[in-house]
């Protein structure tokens, strides 16, 4: 079934849905422009704005539910954004099941992270600035998912890039944080270039950048054009979602405060790429090659992320590897058509809960351990941090796909769909699930079980309520979210007005071969991790490890590859250009000037100041003239 028609809308809560974006934006503006005066209550304003935005999102959601299934794509026109000749962009918001799902996730999880940050950043002198950036992040992300055209999406996209830069480099006094922020920004620029190119091609092909007309006419465009657009958009998605080959910024982005990591990984930023691919489904469906590339990128990333996750001792980097891997699953699903879209978004939402829960849990652990991030110095924290242990544990079980928890439902759906689509992709995804079981267990056991390996001055304690309550709420979502969305294809039906409805709805088969093999592999991974890290002693210093371990520790040599392929040639090119400029261009100009200057310097010696010298020249000239006249006269 095709997606539903987009309907103009006015009035109601949907009519003022722009408040979702404006409220956090106002919060950011007040906090940034207000300066120190807002220091005392700034974080409350940030939380309030985020919560208000969430309330609006919820109201919009229920108003949408109140409409008929085929009436659920509402367009709210706001203003004429870019009236420039043939490029006439009208800014508007597209409220449909897809965008409202994202909006709920962003504002909901975002608000919990805001609340958590009150406690986490309590001792930071720049807490107000932090909340301003968080609000800006939320606003940009909401603009990204709610805009009804590619240009508006692009504005939000860049806003997210800016906000992520500001937040990753929040502790800019640390050189590593500044470098990480810069790296994230630059790698994102590469992706943004792809997105920009995609939008250019869309405009030249369709004459507009609004979603409605573009998708309506997508089927009329040639397959080559659609493939081109799809690949360009995929490049953008890779940059934002940290997919291969633009994954390198994500691990370094852990330099930011932990709530930022949670926000980037769970609710915003990295999900933008998945959103872009799913939103542009009409284009990708016309371009099977692009879809295939999307799935390949997804599978490659999910394996790469999982492998990286197995080797990291830094708890946040291990989690970052898992994010890469999980986004890889979503990307894989997003390349599989309408069935995949539903699973991708469902997994995205479930992932938003359990990954936020785990990141915030990791933040809670770090908070307790004097900001120590090395898991080899944790161990046995389960007894002292009960709430964190339980919530983190639930998130952990959800991500490895423990039966009946969130991850089980959504990830299993993705694997089944992939298997149905292409067995190779399916089996690779199964292997990825197995590795996930291992590295998440490793992380969990190293942190919470085994003998304590704490530093002498570490006195772990449970975090304050303002930090634990968000954990509890999130863990509820990570336990029940998946089941709620997947059972009876509830989410797929809800989403179908936006992304189209598959010809036949998948039926959930818990005891299929694939499901059982996946579970078995995961179990093997968990048991192996227990043997290695739960039961036996974990060395305080990382052993040298096998070649594969080193490979994974070095992020699969992604940075080395980037340096060798892009950075060094770029530097050489720059040096060459500088050399050419200095010696060639400047040399020519300077040489000419030096030539003239030198000649003049010598020539001016003729001006001796002696009148008799001048008179001699004149007389010589006169003699020459007489001679010439004599010669000419005698011809």
């Amino acid at each position, binding site marked *: 079934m095709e997606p539903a028609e987009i309907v103009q809308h006015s009035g109601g809560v949907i009519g003022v849905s722009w408040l979702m974006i404006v409220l956090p934006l106002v919060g950011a503006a007040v906090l940034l422009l207000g300066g120190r005066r807002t220091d005392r209550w700034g974080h409350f304003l940030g939380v309030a704005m985020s919560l208000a935005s969430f309330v609006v999102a919820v109201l919009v959601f229920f108003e949408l539910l109140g409409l008929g299934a085929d009436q659920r794509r509402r367009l709210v026109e706001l203003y004429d954004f870019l009236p420039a000749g043939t490029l006439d962009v009208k800014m508007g918001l597209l409220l449909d099941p897809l965008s409202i799902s994202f909006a709920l996730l962003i504002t909901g999880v975002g608000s919990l992270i805001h609340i958590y940050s009150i406690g986490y950043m309590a001792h930071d002198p720049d807490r107000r600035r932090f909340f301003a950036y968080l609000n800006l992040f939320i606003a940009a992300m909401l603009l990204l998912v709610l805009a009804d055209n590619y240009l508006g999406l692009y504005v939000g996209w860049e806003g997210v890039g800016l906000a992520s830069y500001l937040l990753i480099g929040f502790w800019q006094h640390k050189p590593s944080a500044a470098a990480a922020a810069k790296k994230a920004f630059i790698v994102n620029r590469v992706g943004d270039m792809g997105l920009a190119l995609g939008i250019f091609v869309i405009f030249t092909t369709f004459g507009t950048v609004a979603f409605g007309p573009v998708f309506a006419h997508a089927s009329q465009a040639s397959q080559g054009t659609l493939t081109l657009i799809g690949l360009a958009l995929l490049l953008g998605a890779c940059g934002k979602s940290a997919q291969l080959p633009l994954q390198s910024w994500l691990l370094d982005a852990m330099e930011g405060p932990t709530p930022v990591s949670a926000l980037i990984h769970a609710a915003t930023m990295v999900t933008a790429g998945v959103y872009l691919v799913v939103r542009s489904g009409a284009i990708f469906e016309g371009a099977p090659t692009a879809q295939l590339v999307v799935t390949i990128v997804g599978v490659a990333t999910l394996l790469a992320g999982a492998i990286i996750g197995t080797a990291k001792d830094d708890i946040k980097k291990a989690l970052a590897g898992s994010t890469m891997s999980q986004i890889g699953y979503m990307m894989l699903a997003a390349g599989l058509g309408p069935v995949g879209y539903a699973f991708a978004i469902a997994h995205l939402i479930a992932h938003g809960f359990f990954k936020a829960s785990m990141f915030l849990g990791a933040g809670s652990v770090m908070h307790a351990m004097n900001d120590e991030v090395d898991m080899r110095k944790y161990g046995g924290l389960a007894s002292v941090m009960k709430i964190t242990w339980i919530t983190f544990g639930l998130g952990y079980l959800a991500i490895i796909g423990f039966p009946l928890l969130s991850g089980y439902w959504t990830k299993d759906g993705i694997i089944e769909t992939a298997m149905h689509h292409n067995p190779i992709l399916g089996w690779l995804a199964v292997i990825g699930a197995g590795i996930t079981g291992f590295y998440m267990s490793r992380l969990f056991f190293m942190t919470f079980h085994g003998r304590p390996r704490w530093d002498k001055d570490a006195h772990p304690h449970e975090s304050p309520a303002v930090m634990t309550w968000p954990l509890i709420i999130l863990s509820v979502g990570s336990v029940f979210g998946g089941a709620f969305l997947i059972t009876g294809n509830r989410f797929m039906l809800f989403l179908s007005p936006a992304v189209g409805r598959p010809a036949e709805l998948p039926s959930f088969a818990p005891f299929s071969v694939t499901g059982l093999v996946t579970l078995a592999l995961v179990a093997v991974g968990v048991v192996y991790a227990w043997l290695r890290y739960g039961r036996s002693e974990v060395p305080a210093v990382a052993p040298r490890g096998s070649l594969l371990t080193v490979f994974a520790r070095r992020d699969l040599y992604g940075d080395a590859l980037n340096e060798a392929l892009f950075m060094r040639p770029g530097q050489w090119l720059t040096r060459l250009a500088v050399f050419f400029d200095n010696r060639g261009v400047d040399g020519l100009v300077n040489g000419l000037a030096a030539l003239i200057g030198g000649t003049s310097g010598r020539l001016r010696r003729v001006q001796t100041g*002696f009148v*008799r010298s001048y008179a001699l020249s004149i007389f010589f000239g006169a003699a020459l003239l007489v001679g010439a006249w004599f010669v000419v006269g005698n011809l």
Partner: protein
Amino acid sequence: MTTHYLVLSALLFAIGAVGVLVRRNAIVVFMCVELMLNACNLAFVTFARQHGNLQGQIIAFFVMIVAAAEVVVGLAIIVTIFRTRRSASVDDVNLLKY
């Protein structure tokens, strides 16, 4: 005969020119310039007789007048320079150079 006069005129002119070039005393240089002017006058007078009209003599007359004026101003300049620099050498006046 005309040729003889003209050659004499050319010789005197060349001698005057060489004098201008080799002498440093401004007054002597000036005298050499006068010599050149006189050589020209001789040529004019000769041509006047050769062509049988008085134009040459007229112009020689005007040359004399202009030469007189020139001598007056030139010598005044020399006196002024001498007064400030205590020198009448044309080589000493060489500040305007590279």
